[in-house]
């Protein structure tokens, strides 16, 4: 019942209009996020991180208080624009959130026209930062995921790989960039694009098994795609040494929900699981997360927290300087240079995080071990190793 109540609360928050006037010392910040539709799960995960950031910021920053106004973009680009416009009407000073490059693109276009800074971690398509907006910032990018995937394959010393990727913008960008870099390093790569609506991956994996015969299969997609690909591979048993994915794969959720499919599978991961935080901020984040949601944080919450905390700090600095409504937030965001839970964050003049590099995790005995890069590794890589 508690779970249902909390879900009702979440949707109510998504549907809520800004209630009444805010207190004088409260600064309104918009969260445009998919809480329903195909991206509801990842949107809800990011929203948890945003809520944790609000809680932590309001407790640790004595001078300013942040109040979040949430608008559900229903995982649809047109609704994302409407959500941004609604939030602007509610009087927010900036926007955090967004998931899926195809939603973030039009949403941040609308925010830019309205002069609202927009910060995200949910879209890695390259064209997002090529628009040259002074109001757009993101803390992760394709290059960081690419470095991690290519770095892992270099460590494995594989000579051939098949990349199975969704035709969505962000996944296609990443797959092609990985292919280019691997090919330049002498690895034989074959690309297999798939439509996001596909459910049976056996014909693709059979092509990989009988024609490509690679040493590793790279999967660039989302949770439902990974389950389909791994199931098909488990049936067809291609002779590969590793199954390597990207986001949303090396997570505690996947480990607990699909224990038979995950052993030895790789994916990007910021933290091992069970999570271990060394810094004060990390411990505060994990404690607050546990208090609010009664569970350990995952990468979605972590990204949502970092992007929001950076924004809140920029807002506080702009408020102190008296430039809150004179473009000061974007200027303060551009000046950001600090260590965060995902590493050092500094923005380029296009709004991209200059320092973002991901890590690679591997499912091992129901846990997630960081196996790349070597200086961050928490366990030895189980290689060769596949779930079957």
């Amino acid at each position, binding site marked *: 019942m508690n779970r249902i109540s909390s879900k009702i609360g979440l949707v109510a928050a998504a549907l809520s209009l800004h209630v009444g006037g805010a207190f004088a010392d409260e600064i309104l910040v918009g969260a445009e996020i998919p809480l329903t539709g195909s991206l509801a799960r990842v949107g809800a995960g990011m929203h948890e991180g945003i809520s944790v950031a609000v809680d932590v910021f309001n407790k640790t920053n004595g001078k300013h208080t942040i109040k979040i106004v949430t608008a559900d973009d229903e*995982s649809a680009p047109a609704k994302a624009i409407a959500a941004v416009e609604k939030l602007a009407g509610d009087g927010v000073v900036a926007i955090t959130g967004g998931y899926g490059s195809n939603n973030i693109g039009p949403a941040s276009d609308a925010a830019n026209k309205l002069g609202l800074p927009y910060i995200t971690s949910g879209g890695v398509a390259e064209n997002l930062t090529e628009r040259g907006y002074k109001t757009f910032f993101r803390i992760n990018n394709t290059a960081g995921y690419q470095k991690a995937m290519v770095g892992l394959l270099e460590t494995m010393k594989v000579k051939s790989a098949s990349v199975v990727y969704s035709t969505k913008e962000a996944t296609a960008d990443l797959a092609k960039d990985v292919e280019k870099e691997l090919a330049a390093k002498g690895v034989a790569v074959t690309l297999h694009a798939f439509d996001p609506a596909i459910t049976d991956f056996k014909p693709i994996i059979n092509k990989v098994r009988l024609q490509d015969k690679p040493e590793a299969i790279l999967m660039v997609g989302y949770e439902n795609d990974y389950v389909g690909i791994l199931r098909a591979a488990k049936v067809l048993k291609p002779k590969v040494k590793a199954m390597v994915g990207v986001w949303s794969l090396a997570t505690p959720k996947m480990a607990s929900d699909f224990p038979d499919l995950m052993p030895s599978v790789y994916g990007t991961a910021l933290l091992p699981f069970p999570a271990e935080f060394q810094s004060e901020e990390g411990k505060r984040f994990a404690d607050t997360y546990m208090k609010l949601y009664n569970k350990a944080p995952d990468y979605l919450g972590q990204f949502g927290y970092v992007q929001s905390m950076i924004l809140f700090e920029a807002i506080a600095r702009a408020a102190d300087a008296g430039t809150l409504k004179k473009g000061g937030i974007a200027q303060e965001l551009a000046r950001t240079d600090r260590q965060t839970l995902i590493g050092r964050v500094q923005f380029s003049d296009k709004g991209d995080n200059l320092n973002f590099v991901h890590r690679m995790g591997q499912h091992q005995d129901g846990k997630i071990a960081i196996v790349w890069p070597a200086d961050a590794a928490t366990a030895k890589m189980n290689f060769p190793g596949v779930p079957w």
Partner: protein
Amino acid sequence: MSELILQALYSGVLQGGSYALIALGLALVFGTMKVINLAHGELVLLAAYMAYTVESRLGLSPMFAIPVALVLVCITAVLVYFLVSLIRKDRELNSLILTYGIGIILTNAVLLIWSADVRSTSSSWMQDALVFGPFYSMRSEVLFFVVSVALMGGLWWWLSKSWYGRAVRAVSSNRDAAKLMGINPRSTEIVSFIVAGILASFAGVAIFSYGVIQPAFGHVLTVKAFIITVLAGIGSIPGVMVGALLLGIAEALTVTLASSALQELVGMSLFLLVLFVMPNGLFGAAGRRG
């Protein structure tokens, strides 16, 4: 190459059986009432989530969810019918809007109750490989293909041999004439919604057993079922099987011979081509054999 094509054909046939199971209920209601139930995919999804609940809460095989799903989905289907029956004017058009709205409500109900997480069976028996020579599949795919064929045979028998089945066809052909023959169209329509609910229950448990479910998945199922129904020709049960198999095989061959990125495009092109050449569908009124 031959091994690739053989596997593609086999995968396509199994996928076609799955599509047919999803489309049958929609085709039945479309055939009898001329109502396109745009909430049909959500009924299938509801059954799939019942299978998830039975497996995750009780630790039982998804197959044990079928009786529970039958009750819940049939009740929901009857509720949908009662709402549709309240429409007094332009039922064919207005029911589209109504059932679309019901679909949205059901999707959000699923989201509230079961959250947005990706779900699928954890039963290793269901997922284990079944290999016949060059043909590879999961056990659950073969199992539910057999179930699909059996249900289709049962439905065909029911429609052609049983009193209620013939009443459904009579109402479908001419509602007023059926009334004059002593058939109560209202109870006949309720029966067709219940049968659609039964078919949706099996389809939902099948999808959970070999696929992946999410709350937003319902409308994808409805669209696929609608394509097959129109492809088949309104009211034709054998047509649904042929249309579903054609679609499944065309998609699998596209993946094998061209690119998987073109799979959906080829499905839609096939749909448009058939409609262009045979506007009544493969087994539509002009040449119906089923």
